């Protein structure tokens, strides 16, 4: 059993070339498409959020299973732990938004004479915005660090106290996350369309995050297994990950539909004003997102066999990851760039650059610790995992 993952040259080159292609496309795109400041900042925000969500989900995955007293996931704990290592970088990237505030967030302008925005000013103001941002990251990074540290400590010490401490930390993280995931999505996404509001929004974003995270973990499992690691991860684990991807794609659709149905039905302009430009100016993308994120995984993963086939599952995961990137794109674009926005070289370049960076951080952090945890009292259940 290979204890530690080593980042191979080939992989490094691969990652570097992804990032390199990203930079190249960006430069090309900058000259060909001559994007304006808004477009650049919007791209920064989109990718910031996207990779932040995946990283943050690492913590959610760990905490959720810990408090649910699950045993089966123990063997693949290190992967979500590695995801959380991207969080500090996300934090830095998010704080960069400070320089693009006016391009992204209409409400950040002074003297708008908009009575509705004036009413929200107590919440939507730049200092408080960044104070909240700092608070969120502090909590997330701190708690995920402690969660990870706890398992590392456990590796060295079979004492059950780490198990108990892990549960407390997980509960703390979940509580913190439950509140901040909503406020974070209001702050960073919903406030782009500053007049619009939807109580469901935070939960909708959370489920999107869930799907992305699961898809990423699936891909990492596939990657590591292809590299010859994780042989103790069997079909049942894969099946469960497949079920997650399947179920949460449906759940994502459920929330999307709940929100859309209610707004479509009541037809109150304050709310429909959000969907009107998305439907009219981005019609194709609007429906593409639904097809990729729901219909495709729904049909592709319906049978038992499809969920147990890692290759197929990885393919679905890639498609779904693209779908959710598009979803975030759809959330951000109409309120920032407007109806002329198009996915071009700049968008792909930014995404590739971020992807490269993200992969490097995650894979590098995987090399730091053994791929398998030790001393977890439930680890044995994970090895003997069957239906």
């Amino acid at each position, binding site marked *: 059993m290979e204890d530690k993952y080593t980042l191979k040259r080939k992989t490094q080159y691969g990652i570097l070339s992804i990032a390199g292609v990203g930079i190249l496309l960006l430069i090309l795109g900058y000259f060909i498409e001559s994007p304006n400041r808004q477009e650049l900042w919007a791209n920064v925000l989109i990718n910031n959020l996207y990779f932040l969500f995946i990283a943050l989900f690492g913590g959610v995955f760990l905490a959720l299973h810990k408090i649910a007293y699950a045993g089966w996931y123990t063997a693949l704990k290190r992967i979500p732990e590695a995801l959380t290592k991207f969080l500090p970088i996300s934090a830095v990237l998010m704080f960069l938004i400070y320089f693009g505030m006016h391009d992204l967030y209409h409400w950040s302008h002074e003297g708008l004479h908009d009575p509705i925005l004036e009413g929200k000013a107590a919440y939507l103001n730049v200092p408080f915005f960044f104070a909240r941002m700092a608070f969120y990251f502090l909590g997330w990074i701190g708690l995920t660090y402690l969660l990870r540290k706890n398992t590392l400590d456990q590796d060295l010490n079979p004492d059950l106290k780490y198990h108990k401490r892990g549960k407390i930390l997980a509960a703390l993280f979940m509580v913190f996350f439950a509140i901040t995931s909503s406020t974070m999505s209001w702050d960073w996404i919903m406030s782009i369309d500053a007049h619009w509001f939807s109580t469901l929004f935070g939960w909708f974003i959370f489920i999107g995050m869930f799907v992305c995270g699961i898809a990423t973990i699936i891909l990492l499992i596939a990657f590591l297994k292809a590299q010859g690691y994780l042989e103790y991860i069997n079909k049942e684990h894969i099946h469960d990950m497949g079920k997650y991807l399947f179920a949460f794609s449906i759940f994502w659709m459920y929330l999307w539909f709940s929100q859309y149905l209610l*707004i*479509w*039905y*009541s*037809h*109150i*302009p*304050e709310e*429909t*004003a959000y*969907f*009107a*430009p998305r*439907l009219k100016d981005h019609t194709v993308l609007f429906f593409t997102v639904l097809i990729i994120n729901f219909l495709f995984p729904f049909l592709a993963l319906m049978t038992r066999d499809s969920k147990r086939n890692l290759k197929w599952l990885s393919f679905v995961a890639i498609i779904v990851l693209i779908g959710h990137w598009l979803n975030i794109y759809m959330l951000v674009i109409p309120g920032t760039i407007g109806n002329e926005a198009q996915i071009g070289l700049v968008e792909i370049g930014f995404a590739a650059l971020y992807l490269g960076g993200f992969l490097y951080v995650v894979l590098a952090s995987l090399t730091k610790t053994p791929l398998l945890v030790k001393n977890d009292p439930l680890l044995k259940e994970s090895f003997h995992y069957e239906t």
Partner: protein
Amino acid sequence: MKKYWKSLTELKNKENSISDQPMPKGNLEQILDIFDKNENGSKSNRRDFLKLCGYSLAISTVVASCENSVQKAIPYLIKPEEITPGKANYYASSFAKGSDFCSILIKTRVGRPIKIEGNDLSTVTNGGTSSRVQASVLDLYDTSRYKNPLKENEKLLWEELDEFVRKELNRLKNANEEVVLLTSSVYSPSTISVIQKFIAQYPNVKWVQYDSQSYSALIQASKMCFGKAGIADYRFDYADIIVSFDADFLGTWLMPVEYIRQYAKKRKLSDGNTSMSQHIQLESRLSLTGSNADKRIPVKPSEQRLLLAQLYNEILKLAGKDTYTVLNTSGDMQGIAKDLWSHKGKSLVVSGSNDVNVQLIVNAINYELENYGSTLRFEKQLQTSKAIESDMKNLLEDMKAGKVKALLAYGVNPVFDYYKGDEFALALKKIGFTIALDEVPNETTSLMKFVAPDNHYLESWNDFEPKANRYSLMQPGIRPLFNTRQFQSSLLSWIGEDPDYLKFIKAYWEKNFYPMQNTYPNFVTYWNNTLQQGVFEPNLKSVSDTKFNYGGINNILDELAKQPKSKGIELQVYESIAIGDGKMANNPWLQEMPDPISKICWDNYLCISPKLASELMMETGDVVEVNSKVKLPVYVLPGQAYNTVAVAKGYGRQVCGIVGKNVGVNVNSLHNSSVDFIDNVNLIKTGEKYDLAMTQTHHSMEGRAIVREADLEEYKKNPAAGNESHHAYENASIYEKPKFPNHHWGLVVDLNSCVGCGACSIACQAENNVPVVGKKEVIRAHEMSWIRIDRYFSGDEFNPDVSFQPVMCQHCDNAPCENVCPVAATSHSSEGLNQMAYNRCIGTRYCGNNCPYKVRRFNWFDFTKADSIPNNLHDVAEMTIDLKRMVLNPDVTVRAKGVIEKCSLCVQRIQEGKLNAKIKGRKVKDGEIKTACEQACPSGAIIFGDLNDKESKLVKETSSKRNYHLLEEIHTLPSVSYLTKIRNKKMNHS
């Protein structure tokens, strides 16, 4: 044995043989002959009538009540002329009850009057109506009406009665004993002629006129100042500035229907006209008029005289005349005086006081302001109130003294509404021969020995001269339902003349009015045309001499200046909008009509100012004892002047049908004189609680843009003032707006015209068979009104601004209610109407919950007997008995228990209009279709039309900058819209 008709001629012949009376309206009578006592026709004839006319079961019961055998319903065998089943016939007529007058059209269906509409041809009422006029049709079917002549409550035949009366009158005549004919004000020329004839026959008869609401001060003051007894013709439409001292001219003072029209006309704004009158009201109780005023100054009743004197003084000052230095003038009065002065000749000062001195000052002020001939005219003097108070006082003295040996009473109820009613009752009992000529029993008639019951006005012929030279005819819409006879016919028969009053009127008109015109070549065409139009308004110019000729003003002012200021609580007794003097108290529609200001129905109550209430630690619903005489529930009325209270009269009827009996409290005993108010009232909290039936319990708009309003000054600068917050969300829609290719019916309500009188709501109730639920259910917020008038107070609690807003179904094109009905019982028509399919409705009330306007009404109980479950009827007002069901509009389904109902924009009228147009092969003309509320509205605030017709009046109004939709931010796309209310608040000088 059955006997069938062979031809229409035979039918006519038979008809003639039954009655010699001329046929006013063809075959109507044929049907109604069944109600006549079997005088001429044989029994089998009557049966044939029934078979022919095919009345429903409803009639059968009426028949039964007339002791006829129950008949089966049989359809028309031979259709009578004029009556087409399914088509309404309209007859021009007049409504007159005491001083209430209105020119009307009677809408009949298969011979039944079912609805009253205003007569547009009258220049007096201009097609407007009031709630009482609208409700009067129900009185026709009142079960409490007299059904036969009575002697000591025993039925007798008319012949017997006539013989007895003639004998008695002759006896008294021979003995030269005083006989008194007591009537309300009579302004019917023919009736006056009949009475004169009667007096000529019996010279011992003294004619006394008595009005429950006396305007004798006006009449007398006019006589004292100008030598002309009577009431001037007020022209609110000529007044740029109106100052009213407690005159509720939009509510109950003199001729509100006429005044509302004038008032609204002067205040109607359009893109072309941005000027409107300014209205200042000084009053103690927040009246309907006060609630419409641009500036309202709460004052105690006792202070008004002094303020008027000050005003007069200031005006004299401005006129450069001698002034009375004894008076210190308040700032308000100085400003008002200046404003009035700057509109000299175009201003109007009125007072509701019945104090001659006050009216003298008012006349003097108007004279100084040169308003006579402009806003006050004499050539068309108002005639509806003629009674002089002292006459009644004298009569009572005479009665007490035993001088009066016989009393004939018609249209009056002094035992109930005279302030010395108890004394009158005692005196009445002493009179040997008393005969009541009323249609319904009341406190007075019940004490009288004989009853010669009058017809209901919808069964009567008459003529009226409400204003000098403005004549209006009354014609029946139905033959008498019961064995009754018109008052005039009774008098005629008692002097041995032909009792046919119609003949009498015709003769009178041929002699007196026919020569006043030259349009028609002969009397027959003149008569027929006039009868069809209902009004005769000859062009006569009679210049009045308006020389002010009264020297006693100085003394009055001196006296006023000396009077000490009153410190106590002052009580004012007023007439309520719905019930008036109480004559129509048995009308459930009126009882259930909420007061425009307090929104309370089914009761009178003591209005008390918020400050006084908090001082006395009282709140709405507390029962207080007033002067240890009557117990009344308190209603804290914002705007009521401090240290004053007010209560409506007309309530607490004792001898009345089941509806009005014991509703509220009779407050006449509080009076000790007939002056305007009662001083030093003592209020004692009893600790009891009383539930008042309020249709609106929250009075603030909570800062929401529901009634949008602006000041005239802002409006002049920006026509969209107050209406800025338009939610332009054209691009926000995620599906297409529905399209209506042919018609798109809509309605607009001008909030600047609406005075809140409530005529529309009663008209709607009559038109749409809206059930009456009773007080208990109103308390439980179960009232059924399809159109309600929301009343909001804003600003200062002690003197609030008042806004009225009629709210009916808004007929949203994006209707939230339609979406949610599980069974599709409510859907949208292709002409933009929000429809209800009653028989599809299962009553989930989901639509009602989802209606942001809360206009949907649910049938909480079996109010209408349309339910198939037995023994669950919930009918407090006998509305489901067969007689009263005759008032139902057959075009509108009666709704069963458990279904939702709501305004349909009078879809039956739309359908009728469309069919009429179709028969004629043309498009529906603008204005051709009128909803019931629009038709009834005296101010013309409601306009119905086709939103697709760009030339229509409706579209002209809706394209105004003042136009807005209620709650347009939720994108319901209503077809009903509103025009902002504009207040003319800016005073030039104060």
